[in-house]
């Protein structure tokens, strides 16, 4: 490793060679994944040596891994060498005004009731310097600081709190966990970092939405949340507005660590571009999310509303290590047109008297395919562990599909594992009943869907729940009839 500097110099020279002149172009790495790219990224970010080493280990793991073959869909071809692994966080706005933005996208914003300034930000339009949320963000940040809460970009955390990052990064999702996690370890762009000190209850929902500098951290995001003993935090990821991105592959990693008596609630609303009617051009959302209930009585709760992406492939999981710890997974996944979702969770019961609860609601319309895949594993020491799984599928029309793959591995006969599954169709009878009360079919479907998904939507923070409800209705517009 003695010749690191040489390599960095080399790359610096290459930069020049390739004729990077303007500021913007200078911040984009040439496509391809190799040691040079990784060193380039790390150098660009002024990262410490240990992090570079870790990235390189990730790269090695990535090279050894094969793409999985067990998933319930045909794996699209991904050319990892064609992807550009580094783009500077600040790129130019794509448009000068909203007039240039796809009117269909704007219509959706309208329906969701998103304020004009936020519409601009989301659509990639230049935003005035005095953006309302800047001042909001400042007060917000000060309040958090008073409580000792750290909420910043991953990159900032590496600089300001290296001891925390070093201790926990890769501790829940190792660099070699799976091929996409390895890719992320090697090439992660940026992401979020949260630390809640002992005994502190975070007084507000933390959301990347409120963090400045979050745009374009996109493709290989990495999030690390640590809740110290007796603390509580609720974190929101994503937003209901449709998100477009030129990067087709998204391979994020999220790691949650809950120490004794701590609780982390992690909510996601995922609405990435699903592709056109034939599924072309949509995002591949291959995310590794895992949390560990490290201490006694700790709790981790995942809630997700997945409506976007052409392929959603993820299993937010919980390792229940501490005695009496609890893991929860609440999910609504919608697929329509040619969309695919293969999602679910894994609950690893290790400690005594650990509990897990899984509520999964799949909704398939058009030719959408929805798979629930869940693993409940009970270890030999997990006396009196309990799991309850409810896994429902709702079909709209008869060209879509719903599949369930529940796996139970129990090595402890004091454990209780319950699994319930239902498959239902939105019946003509239900729609007619609502029609007969003056409600048109579009609204009728929205009512039925929101009723069906209620148990999950109820887990979301209030405002988010209302938005998610609207999102579900809009997503399924025109799918009945």
């Amino acid at each position: 490793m003695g010749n690191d500097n040489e390599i960095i110099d080399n790359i610096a020279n290459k930069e020049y060679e390739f004729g990077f002149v303007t500021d913007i172009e200078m911040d984009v790495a040439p496509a391809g994944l190799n040691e040079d790219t990784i060193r380039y990224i790390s150098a660009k970010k002024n990262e410490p040596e240990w992090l570079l080493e870790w990235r390189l280990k990730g790269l090695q793991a990535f090279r050894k891994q094969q793409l999985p073959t067990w998933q319930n869909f045909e794996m699209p071809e991904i050319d990892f060498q064609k992807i550009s692994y580094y783009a500077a966080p600040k790129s130019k706005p794509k448009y000068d005004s909203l007039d240039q933005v796809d009117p269909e996208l704007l219509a959706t914003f309208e329906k969701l009731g998103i304020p004009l300034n936020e519409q601009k930000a989301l659509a990639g339009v230049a935003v005035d310097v005095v953006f309302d949320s800047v001042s909001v963000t400042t007060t917000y940040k000060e309040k958090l600081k008073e409580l000792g809460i750290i909420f910043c970009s991953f990159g900032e955390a590496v600089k300001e709190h290296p001891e925390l990052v070093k201790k926990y990064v890769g501790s829940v999702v190792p660099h070699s966990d799976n091929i996409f996690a390895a890719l992320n370890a090697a090439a992660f762009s940026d992401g979020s970092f949260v630390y809640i000190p002992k005994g502190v209850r975070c007084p507000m929902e933390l959301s990347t939405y409120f963090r400045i500098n979050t745009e374009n951290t996109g493709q290989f995001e990495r999030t690390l949340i640590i809740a110290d003993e007796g603390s509580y935090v609720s974190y929101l990821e994503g937003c209901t507005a449709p998100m477009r991105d030129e990067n087709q592959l998204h391979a994020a990693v999220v790691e949650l660590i809950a120490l004794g008596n701590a609780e982390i609630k992690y909510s996601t609303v995922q609405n990435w571009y699903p592709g056109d009617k034939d599924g072309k051009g949509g995002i591949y959302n291959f995310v590794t999310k895992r949390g560990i209930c490290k201490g006694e009585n700790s709790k981790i709760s995942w809630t997700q509303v997945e409506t976007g992406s052409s392929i959603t492939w993820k299993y937010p999981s919980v390792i229940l290590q501490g005695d009496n710890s609890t893991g929860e997974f609440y999910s609504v996944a919608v697929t329509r047109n040619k969309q695919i979702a293969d999602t679910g969770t894994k609950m690893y019961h290790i400690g005594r008297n650990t509990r897990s609860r899984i509520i999964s609601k799949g909704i398939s319309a058009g030719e959408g395919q929805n798979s629930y895949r869940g693993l409940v594993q009970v270890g030999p020491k997990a006396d009196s562990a309990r799991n309850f799984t409810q896994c429902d599928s709702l079909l709209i029309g008869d060209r879509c599909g719903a599949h369930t793959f529940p796996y139970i591995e129990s090595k402890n006969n004091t454990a209780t594992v319950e699994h319930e599954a239902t498959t239902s169709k939105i019946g003509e009878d239900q729609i007619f009943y609502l029609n007969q009360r003056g409600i048109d079919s579009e609204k009728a479907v929205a009512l039925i869907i929101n009723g069906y998904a209620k148990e999950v939507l109820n887990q979301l923070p209030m405002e988010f729940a209302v938005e998610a409800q609207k999102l579900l209705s809009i997503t399924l517009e025109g799918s009945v009839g």
Partner: protein
Amino acid sequence: MLIIKNLHAGIEGKQILKGLNLTVNAGEVHAIMGPNGAGKSSLASVLAGRENYEVTEGEVSFQGKDLLDMNPETRAREGLFLAFQYPIEIPGVSNINFLKTALGEIRAYKNLPPLDAKEFLALSREKQKLVEFDAKLVNRSLNEGFSGGEKKRNEIFQLAMLEPSLSILDETDSGLDIDALRIVSKGVNKLRSEKNAFIIITHYQRLLEYIVPDFVHVLANGRIVKSGTKELALELEEKGYDWLKEEKEQEATII
């Protein structure tokens, strides 16, 4: 209010209504009786606009408009209400939210502003009292896990909330015990007015003791074969429907 002329309709190629005529005026209550499978529910479905029925002949005018030309929700917004024989369950959709949506749609159609939360709540309370509907059921999921009787009573509560001009009650009495029957009838009687009308489909004369009809019709073989006043209901109860068949056959041989 409702004029049905020579209505022919069928389902899946099977002819069920075969030239049915019926006129209902505002302020009237009509009872329709008849043997199982005669087409009573089919008539209700055709009037409400259920898609799988095909109307092959005839016309229906509702408050001067062509009913058959409207989609189901428009018929409902125009003031046609069907209390279903088998009310459907919709899990997770709260009864009250559903009603708020329905009332909102109907009011919007009539260019009326939506009721605010307070007004709506007041209305709901008033109607609950009127039809003696259990407040607990108001907040539960729509018909989910309701007993047969509770479902029927919920139909009447909805009827009270939506204030339609023409209500069709399809065997609302079946599955009700005598107390529930009395409560439902009391509710309907309170809702009766000069401006609205009811078509009550039933098997039993019993209901008609509580809700006294202006006319009683017998539906058999897809047509109204006999009409009369409430005495006809008693006659039917006594003699059953077989004598009607004989009468009809005689009629046929004469012709």
